[in-house]
């Protein structure tokens, strides 16, 4: 499974996403999307190598903070249906 079922943020200390030099502008759309992609890519690689997916939590927290809830729901739905446009 690609982790679409996990909806609650993991426990532990967490600050809001810090400044990201890749996205210095007012437009933060890609910042949200890239972190969503990175989370799912990370999960896929870690699962394939049989490693812990704990390092992927960072991406989860970033996209969870940045992306509107409706976007995440839509993307998760698309992943489930196999119609997600991003390369995971």
């Amino acid at each position, binding site marked *: 499974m690609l982790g679409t079922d996990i909806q609650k943020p993991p426990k532990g200390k967490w600050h809001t996403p810090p400044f990201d030099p890749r996205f210095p502008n*007012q437009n*933060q759309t890609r910042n949200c999307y890239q972190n969503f992609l990175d989370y799912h890519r990370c999960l896929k690689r870690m699962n394939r190598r049989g490693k812990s997916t704990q390092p992927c939590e960072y991406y989860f927290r970033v996209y969870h*903070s*940045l992306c*509107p809830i409706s976007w995440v729901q839509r993307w998760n739905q698309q992943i489930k249906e196999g119609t997600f446009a991003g390369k995971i």
Partner: protein
Amino acid sequence: MAYPLQLGFQDATSPVMEELLHFHDHTLMIIFLISSLVLYIIMLMLTSKLVHTNMMNVQEMEMIWTILPAIILILIALPSLHTLYMMDEINNPLLTIKTMGHQWFWSYEYTDYEDLAFDSYMITTDSLKFGELRLLEVDNRMVLPTDLPVRVLVSSEDVLHSWAVPSLGLKTDAIPGRLNQVTLTSMRPGLFYGQCSEICGANHSFMPIVLELVPLKYFENWSASLAQ
């Protein structure tokens, strides 16, 4: 907030708004000086009997009326750019809030720690309590801590909206499919009112924004009470 027959801006609550007010006053002073000079010269030309119709090659005068406006424009441009880049800066925010525009209400999402999301509808005139403001009060205010940089991400679920709070110097377009970032820092607690600033349909006038800025301790209590 605004009051009846108000002239000029609302009081500044954020450092950015203070900068904007300073810039406004600075530019207005220059405009007043230029206008009075022009008016004075017009009066002089209309009342004088001396007319110079054959004046040619007055290089000194040409120099002055080219260089002087250039200097004036630079004096306006430099503080303007300074303020512009200061508004764009985001230095490590302590909280990320999302605000989504809908036809016709705003919804706020606090998803840093818990999944906290709520809609903010205007209170209709007939259900206002005594002392509340017509067309400005909402049922669920957006609560934020004071004195901390907060990242606000603005987007829309349907059509264009614009999320604006004048006393904080904020106005950000809410565009479907795009996330716009803006930094919000307030210098004092209180209630701050704003309205949708992009024509978004029939009830565009009836989707106000209310910020409730409280000290961090009270904000924590509020978010903890909502998360349960």
